């Protein structure tokens, strides 16, 4: 078993899942909604970058920047037009709205760019290979994934810890009512967290896409894994989600190596087993309702 190889590949893919899991968690924590549209929204933004590069010939970084801005606007758009107008919604109602959003954007993307597969290239190529240890290959892409994941997590840490907006976001997450009372525009915080989630989502999606392929469905499976990773991490802390993603990637790769036929479900089965032991994921306390 090429241990080092599987480790690196598993961790790299896991980091992508973890990043995307962050996108899920950020929204879950502010509005308690599992955003089933996360994948499709990221796909939409990636296609914007793709379109700029392919059809208008813009350089990657410009397109990247534009895609981030677009993603942020898209996130806010969804929050403002689809979630905010829903008054007194039930939790499941909100989930159904996100499913609706997923169908809506999935349809739009397919309509605009058709379902044909495309290639999306980022400056960090998977074709450039390093060999840190003999027989263990590590592509530039994997290096980039690790660096970007580390940078994003560090930035997030500082953002949440030391900035006013970050503190306000945490405050809103913990107690919406009290946040309103201290004068936080909670609506804006919601819109902002959607934008934020969408931006992180598209970053992760671009990394995944550049390694795999670009088509309107390419985030469906990663989304499920990211969601699972977030749940495994406990849906709470930023590092927890990334760790969850890493575990997810490793399980998939090692089990996938040992028994390829069962690869697609091993990670999910393991997660269910973990949840049976720790009902709130690995890194969160299990709260019991008080009477």
């Amino acid at each position, binding site marked *: 078993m090429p241990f080092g190889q599987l480790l690196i590949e598993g961790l790299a893919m896991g980091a992508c899942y973890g990043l995307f899991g962050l996108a899920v968690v950020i929204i*879950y924590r502010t509005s*308690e909604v*599992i955003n*089933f549209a996360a994948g499709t929204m990221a796909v939409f933004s990636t296609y914007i970058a793709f379109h700029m590069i392919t059809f208008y010939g813009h350089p990657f970084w410009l397109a990247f920047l534009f895609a981030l801005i677009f993603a942020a606007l898209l996130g806010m758009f969804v929050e403002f037009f*689809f979630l905010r*107008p*829903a*008054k*007194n*919604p*039930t*939790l*499941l*109602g*909100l*989930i*159904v*709205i996100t*499913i*609706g*959003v*997923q*169908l*809506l*954007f*999935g*349809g*739009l993307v*397919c*309509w*605009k*760019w*058709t*379902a044909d597969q495309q290639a999306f290239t980022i400056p960090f190529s998977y074709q450039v290979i390093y060999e840190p240890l003999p027989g263990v290959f590590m592509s530039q892409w994997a290096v980039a994934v690790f660096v970007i994941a580390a940078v994003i997590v560090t930035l997030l840490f500082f953002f949440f810890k030391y900035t006013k907006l970050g503190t306000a976001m945490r405050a809103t997450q913990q107690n919406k009512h009290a946040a309103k009372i201290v004068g936080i525009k909670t609506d804006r915080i919601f819109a902002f967290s959607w934008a934020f989630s969408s931006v992180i989502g598209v970053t992760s999606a671009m990394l995944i896409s550049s390694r795999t392929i670009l088509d309107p469905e390419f985030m469906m499976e990663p989304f*499920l894994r990211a*969601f*699972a990773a*977030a*749940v495994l991490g406990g*849906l709470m802390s930023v590092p927890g989600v990334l760790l969850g993603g890493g575990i997810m990637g490793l399980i998939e790769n090692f089990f996938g190596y040992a028994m390829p*036929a*069962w690869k*697609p*479900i091993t990670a*999910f*089965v393991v*997660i*269910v087993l973990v*949840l*049976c032991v720790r*009902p*709130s*994921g690995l890194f969160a306390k299990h709260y019991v*309702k008080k*009477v």
Partner: protein
Amino acid sequence: MDMKRDYYEDIELFSSGTILFWTVVLLVALFAAPLILSNYHAYLFNLIMVHVIVAVGLNILVGSTGQIALGHAGFFAIGAYATVLLMTELSIPFFAALIIAAFIAAFFGFILGLPALRLEGPYLAIATLAFGLAIMHIIGHVELFGGRQGLMAPALNIGIPQLGLDWEICSEKGKYYLILSITILMTLFAVNILKTKAGRAFVAIRDSDIAAEVIGINLTIYKTLAFAVSAFYAGVAGGLFAFVLGFFDPFTFHLILSIIFLVMVVVGGLGSVMGSITGAVLITYLMYDLFKNVDEIPVVGDLMVAVSEQWLTVTGMDNFSMIGLGLVMIGIIIFEPLGIFGAWIRVKKYWKTWPF
């Protein structure tokens, strides 16, 4: 309000003459429908009714007991596969096979209910989702189940061949009557269950599980029971679905189907049987009929093609059906968080109080 003279009248199936009247009208209409329906519509109705059974069952779990379930396509698959395999491999008569299959599904529901005792919200969502994926995957890997290839349903013989009682239903409309009767029966069962001890216990668990416990409701039993009942419904529906379609493969029971089931229940209205029926009807109709083939509608079609040529692509135009479905879902929840049933209650209230 008419006078009640007896406590039983409160729990009667048709608690007023008006309801009875309209139920009879609806039933007559349903039974007469095939006279004017094409085979295509009969198929669509069959599909709708199968979905109604799933939705009614799922609502017992999601709406009444308050558990989220993203793996119902798994039970649906178990029902379909078990029914067909019992009939072909063990030559068990249809009705027996259907019931046994439903119980097998219920058993799996019970199993899935066990982790659900400790999980909630997104954790439960992932657990049920994993169940659905696993079922689909396992079926795809076992030769007995036809593998990826899928299974062909045998002829629908609702008699008992062993006793020489053959009654084969070949036509779409024959199936329609069979499925309609079973759907009505299953719906009545659901209404009754929700009105009696178990149904109340389910609602109690949703509203306050601690209070439910201290009045003597055993959470373990009733939570798993809710899963089992709901899986039973999905199993029955699956068994019928096998014959509606005549052929199925593991991919038919994809996660998307589970999500669609959930959408039906939520759009229809959580916790109400009528709601799940309307939800299933609406969503199935939208998915299979309404938004399909916009390009063949006279004026609108040309407009759509023009729009597509101008800004989008003509090749992707069929995606309009997805967009339409998505928008309808969003619209219903935004304007009526309680689903179609909520809207119905509102209309009824308005009607009763009109013109005040």
